[in-house]
């Protein structure tokens, strides 16, 4: 069965520093991988996805993520954090060889300290 793990409940980063939000996955086949962000009292907003090709994926708001097949990871990164990046981040996976179900991690709360 497919699954997603976000090992950190919360990540604190000083403004201007680089940030990383970790995600590992488990699927029987090849994955589609996604990152979403959720601001307070809002729905989930799509940030970026990995489908195929270049392992480094660039997305919205300056975020990027690197697909690492050997480590089954898809960590979210940003070179310089902004206070406005503070939110809840969800990693999600879909197994290419199965149906269209997408499974979400439990989320990581990102706090950017001014």
């Amino acid at each position, binding site marked *: 069965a497919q699954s997603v793990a976000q090992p950190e409940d919360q990540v604190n980063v000083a403004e201007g520093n680089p940030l990383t939000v970790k995600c590992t996955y488990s699927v029987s086949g090849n994955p589609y991988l*996604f990152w979403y962000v959720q601001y307070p*009292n*809002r729905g989930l907003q*799509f940030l970026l*996805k990995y*489908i195929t090709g270049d392992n480094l994926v660039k997305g919205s708001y300056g975020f990027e993520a690197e697909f690492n097949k050997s480590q089954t990871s898809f960590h979210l990164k940003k070179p310089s954090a902004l206070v406005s990046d503070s939110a809840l981040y969800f990693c999600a996976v879909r197994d290419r060889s199965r*149906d269209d179900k997408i499974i*979400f991690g439990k989320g990581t709360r990102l706090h950017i300290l001014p």
Partner: protein
Amino acid sequence: EAGVAQSPRYKIIEKRQSVAFWCNPISGHATLYWYQQILGQGPKLLIQFQNNGVVDDSQLPKDRFSAERLKGVDSTLKIQPAKLEDSAVYLCASSPGGLGSGNTIYFGEGSWLTVV
């Protein structure tokens, strides 16, 4: 392009009452999803439609939850009777569809349910 529309945004009901949530997906999107998000957790899929057919409802508590997608467009999620543990955000989402595709899923703003 209009996003996924949901209503109502907020609802407070007493336990054992019923509630219904409505969703209008992005135009042309064949796949529609209902997720339940309990505070502090990630979204959990309740039901997935492909056009007006159910693809997956394995995690839908069928004794109290029901959903339909008439004519393959709008959808309604109903809870009857509600329990305290149903307090959550109910997220509707849609995607262009196609089983096994890498299409992005787009979410609505959610319907926030509090059961007292």
